[in-house]
């Protein structure tokens, strides 16, 4: 099994249930596991009945299992204040205002949220040496998925920026006549330095996602969910990412055969429809269905989590990186 495992899907389908169950499953097998939640609602804390934060924390009652919650909004704010801070060091106050507008704007764009999240993903993947497996519970935006497919694009964009910057500096150096100081110098240029660091991070992310990560998509047995999953698979495949399988959640439990009441008839009809949907999923979507989880009477937590973990037919064994 791959080192980084992502669970995705549209809102409310049960990503947290699936990812947490899988994390529990891994941990039970003695695999040191980190579960990373990015859902702003942070259902992980309800699931484990424990408060988590930005730092990995061990879960009471489970060995080998740590959980961390990333708050993208806070990440954006941190990034913003970091920039402002370094601006205070670098720039005179009179210049700050002009630049402030641009900095603020960059953090209020729709993409900022995903960019911050992606940044954090990369950081978590880089510093995850003490774990054998990192399970990501991604937030329900299509944006996250899109961003995970982006490292190459971002990388080539950054590459282009580096190239342009180098060319401009080269020309400035050539334009400095005699003893004149060139307007910019290549040596120790902070811009090239930063861009290079960025590029390396995207390179790492691209490699890790292609070679050592797999995606599981969670869906419910209804048309909308199936469509959406179909599109998500296309996107992932297009980005040359691996889709390990599908987790179908919220299946209606079948009533006992001797029950004939109205409720039982309703359930039987529902089960029939869902069976067709499940067949459709197995037929039309290429990744294998690795679990079909029935709706529980109550929220999946505590002991129920272990039960669901048993239903997941996903490999947990660690392997050497490909």
């Amino acid at each position: 099994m791959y080192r980084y495992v992502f669970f995705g899907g549209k809102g409310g389908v049960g990503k947290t249930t699936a990812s947490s169950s899988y994390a529990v499953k891994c941990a039970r097998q003695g695999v040191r596991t980190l579960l990373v939640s990015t859902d702003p609602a942070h259902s992980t804390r309800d699931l484990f009945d424990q408060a988590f934060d930005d730092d990995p924390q061990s879960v009471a009652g489970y060995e080998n299992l740590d959980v961390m919650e990333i708050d993208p909004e806070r990440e954006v704010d941190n990034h913003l204040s970091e920039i402002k801070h370094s601006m205070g060091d670098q720039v005179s106050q009179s210049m700050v205002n002009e630049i402030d507008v641009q900095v603020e704007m960059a953090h209020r764009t729709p993409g900022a949220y995903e960019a911050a999240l992606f940044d954090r993903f990369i950081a978590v993947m880089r510093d995850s040496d003490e774990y054998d497996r990192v399970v990501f519970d991604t937030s329900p935006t299509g944006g996250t998925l899109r961003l995970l497919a982006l490292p190459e694009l971002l990388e080539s964009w950054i590459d282009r920026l580096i190239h342009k910057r180098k060319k401009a500096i080269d020309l400035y150096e050539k334009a400095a006549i005699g003893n004149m100081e060139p307007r910019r110098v290549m040596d120790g240029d902070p811009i090239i330095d930063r861009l290079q660091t960025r590029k390396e991070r995207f390179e790492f992310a691209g490699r890790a996602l292609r070679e050592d990560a797999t995606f599981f998509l969670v869906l419910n047995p209804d048309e909308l969910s199936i469509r959406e999953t179909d599109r998500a698979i296309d996107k992932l495949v297009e980005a040359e990412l691996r889709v390990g399988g599908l987790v179908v959640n919220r299946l209606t439990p079948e009533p006992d055969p001797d029950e004939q009441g109205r409720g039982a008839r309703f359930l039987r009809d529902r089960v029939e429809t869902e069976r067709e949907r499940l067949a459709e999923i197995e037929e039309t979507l290429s990744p294998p269905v690795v679990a079909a989880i029935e709706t529980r009477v109550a929220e999946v937590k505590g002991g129920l989590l272990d039960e669901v973990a048993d239903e997941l037919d996903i490999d947990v064994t660690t392997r050497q990186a490909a």
Partner: protein
Amino acid sequence: MALAEQIDTYLDAVEEWLRGLYHGMVTHPAYEKIEKEAEDVEDTFMLACFPDAFGIPSPVSYYTAELLPYLTEEFEAWERRLWDRGTMLERKGQQYHF
């Protein structure tokens, strides 16, 4: 001796004038041209970094915002150049001092 000195001074003056003339007509415009070209390249660099300054959304502006503290002067000059620039012809023609 006086004549030789006179000739030397004269030649020095001529040489200085020629050097000045060469610098003014050839060297300086050439370097100016290179510097202008550098500015142009820098402009495209800045545009690729911050297209949203002109209303074009970009997936990298979140990351390039990190560069701004080091780019303040360039950023100001860039915005001014872009807003001020009339036509490409005008910009490219500036090197000819008619």
